[in-house]
């Protein structure tokens, strides 16, 4: 039987604690249609997907499959109804074979308990042949040591098992090269031809324009647009996602630039090679490139997490070779890492303890803390950055993403470093807080800090940086002054064909 929508959500809402993740969202996904789902981080896309795959249950509203209401009470129930979600991070079990990984949870038995290996291999072979993957993956191969691209492929194959009604791709191209992405698109077109409903989530709007039939835009847990792709373009999508023109977020002023504070010469670690750059006092240097181009690895080299195998570094003209991050803190370098929760914050501990973690020398004598001086210092910086918290004794984990990030900034402001490295500083932060963070970054530069800004968000990179350095395949592929930098030029440097890149380096 057919229905206009293969899967439809009607008026669903979902709340986690104080956060309203979804607010009365209604969306239909039609068969043989690619529906793009776009929105900023935290707009509710992931929550919607988790609901479809049976991980979360809606507080109100319901889900229809072929027009009939269903209860997606568990991942198993969702899977049985043909709803498959492909996650960004491939989840592969190294000890199992390709076939076992693909058909996990759906292996057939022989004599009630024994694994029917022949059947498993046959089904896997059929599946791989259908999507022309049989030359790259063998069913009996163990998955230990497979490349990220192949792991992603297995993750995708898992969703392509027979019986799929709706397949959702969550940022599937983030770890793929352009070539690999092209192959993925042909798989998607084939699925579409077979009548499967496709949901495609991506931040790469250009990809979406070429691939999707329809586009659903989400913002702050609500559906703000649901249009045929033909009626939208990139600029319109961005406007809908952000809710206001992006340029409003930045007001560039002339910056006075001082001496070189951080200098890298031919730096190489196990993941990057031949990286040279300089950052001057009062300057914001953007570091652009695709995910996996080695930007975060540059930050890791600077703060001493990844050891150098070649090259040298200088801070304020003096040689600098960190063995561990404490050396970098002492040398006056601060890092606001990409993964706030894992790498920056002690979530159960108070705002106070989190801020004072890097400034013990300012508030202690002979190793003993002065609680009075600690409170004064933390209070000062927390109020200066307008961190919204009931008190500085509040656990950081209970604050919103934007306020958590401000706590990380407050920490470094209390320390007063010379160089600040910001790795995706506005990831997972709502638009209002974003603007505040931008103001903050600009004012830090005005105070004379040298700032290295790593960002995947083009407007942020182009709007804040004095210069943009672009990376590709672990090394610098070009540099642009802000006056010349456009989104197209940055992308061109980030995705330059390999041959041209090599020739340029050789010359």
């Amino acid at each position: 039987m057919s229905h206009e929508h293969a899967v439809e959500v009607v008026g669903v809402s979902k709340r986690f604690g104080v956060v309203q993740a979804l607010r009365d969202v209604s969306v239909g996904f039609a068969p043989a249609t690619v529906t793009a789902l776009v929105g900023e981080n935290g707009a509710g896309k992931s929550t919607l997907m988790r609901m479809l795959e049976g991980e979360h249950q809606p507080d109100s509203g319901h889900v229809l499959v072929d027009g009939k209401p269903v209860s997606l009470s568990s991942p198993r129930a969702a899977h049985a109804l043909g709803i498959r979600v492909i996650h960004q991070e491939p989840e592969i079990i190294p000890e199992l074979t390709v076939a076992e990984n693909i058909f996990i949870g759906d292996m057939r038995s022989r004599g009630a308990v024994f694994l029917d290996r022949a059947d498993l291999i046959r089904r896997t072979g059929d599946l791989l042949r259908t999507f022309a993957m049989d030359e790259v993956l063998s069913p009996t191969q163990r998955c230990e040591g497979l490349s990220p691209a192949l792991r992603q492929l297995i993750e995708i194959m898992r969703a392509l098992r027979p019986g799929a009604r709706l397949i959702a791709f969550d940022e599937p191209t983030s770890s793929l090269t352009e070539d690999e992405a092209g192959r993925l698109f042909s798989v998607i077109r084939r699925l579409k031809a077979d009548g499967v409903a496709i949901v495609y989530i991506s931040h790469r709007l250009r990809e979406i324009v070429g691939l999707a039939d329809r586009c659903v835009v989400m913002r702050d847990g609500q559906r703000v647009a649901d249009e045929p792709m033909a009626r939208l373009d990139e600029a319109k999508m961005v406007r809908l996602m952000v809710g206001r023109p992006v340029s409003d977020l930045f007001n560039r002023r002339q910056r006075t630039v001082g001496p070189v504070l951080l200098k890298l010469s031919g730096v190489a670690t196990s993941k990057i090679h031949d990286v040279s750059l300089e950052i001057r006092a009062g300057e914001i240097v953007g570091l652009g490139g695709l995910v996996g181009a080695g930007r975060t690895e540059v930050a890791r080299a600077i703060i001493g997490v990844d050891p150098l195998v070649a090259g040298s570094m200088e801070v304020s003209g003096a040689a600098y070779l960190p063995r561990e991050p404490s050396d970098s803190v002492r040398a006056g370098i601060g890092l606001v890492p990409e993964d706030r929760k894992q790498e920056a914050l002690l979530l159960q501990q108070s705002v106070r303890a989190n801020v004072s973690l890097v400034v013990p020398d300012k508030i202690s004598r002979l190793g003993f803390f002065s609680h009075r001086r600690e409170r004064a210092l933390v209070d000062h910086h927390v109020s200066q950055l307008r961190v919204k918290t009931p008190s500085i004794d509040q656990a950081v984990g209970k604050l919103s993403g934007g306020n958590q990030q401000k706590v990380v900034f407050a920490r470094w402001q209390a320390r007063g470093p010379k160089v600040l490295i910001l790795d995706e500083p506005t990831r997972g932060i709502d638009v209002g807080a974003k603007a505040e963070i931008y103001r903050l970054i600009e004012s830090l530069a005005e105070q004379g800090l040298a700032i290295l800004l790593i960002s995947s968000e083009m407007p942020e990179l182009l709007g804040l940086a004095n210069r943009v350095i672009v990376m590709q395949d672990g090394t610098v592929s070009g540099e642009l002054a802000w006056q010349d930098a456009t989104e197209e030029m940055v992308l061109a440097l980030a995705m330059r064909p390999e041959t041209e890149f090599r020739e340029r380096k050789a010359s």
Partner: protein
Amino acid sequence: MTADITNVRPASRGWFSRIGAQNVSLLISLVVLLAIFGALRPDVFFTPRNLINIGLAVTILGILAMAQTVVIVSGGLDISVGSIVGLSTMVLAVALQETGSIPLGILACLAAGLLAGAVNGLIIVYGPVNAVIATLGTMSAFRGLAYLMNNGNSIPIVGDGLRLLGTGTLLGLPFAIWLLIAVMAAFIVFTRETIVGRNIYAMGGNPTVARLAGIAVHRYQVGIYAMSGCAAAIAGIVLASRTMSGQPASGSQGLELEAITAAILGGCALQGGKGTIVGAMLGVLIIGVLNNGMILTSVPTFYQLLAKGALLILAVIVQERQRTRNGE
């Protein structure tokens, strides 16, 4: 994608990959140990009698190590097995005393082990309590129960039926060794050829995948700990058939530690998802040969403890090195 595809490691199907690099290095260590002790005591070491002795000495440890391997692969740890061994010998002795029937006695013993293990699993799943803490607690509690059964005294077992299990032979091999072989075969089939067995690797290797694939993780956990308890009861039966008594304190001399050592030596990763039965048995044999060889070459018993502690740490260091080299 083409760039990556051409770099794919060929799907090797040789004997080397089937046995696994880990097991090959264990096999080499075992051969080296055999060669050393064989050279030091050529007159006795390789006699059939001594080899059978080694086999008998590792029966109990082997059964426990294999069960522990499955627990560790699933992402858990069971340090109460030694206490369950002691408890099950007591249950066996009491049941034999009461019924006089060996099948009933063995049944009661296995049921007690199964129940004890299931209690572990239920606490871990529904507490939920960290596996180490939970089995630490029940380790003490089960030992206490064993003491309670006869005011801390042992119970003698009379009758020849059980003695036969301890002393009887078939085709020149003692029954206990046949039992070890049977248990090993069952475990190998279970971990390699059953759906549940394969799912356990998924569970320990990546709990998220397991859950999303609809594997009933909680039920599996209870079942795995129950299985571990049951295996401990089988070990208890072997032990009781040798001492011909129920001993509340038996299995308390660090048996659980040795079982974990053997499993880790055999390639289990404490993080879960990795490890094989064959590897665990190779680990057990290395420990057994080392023990036997040290006795034959008159190494003072005191040094044996030192050697075992060092072996455990060495095994983990090697594991850790391999893990970081694989870039996991």
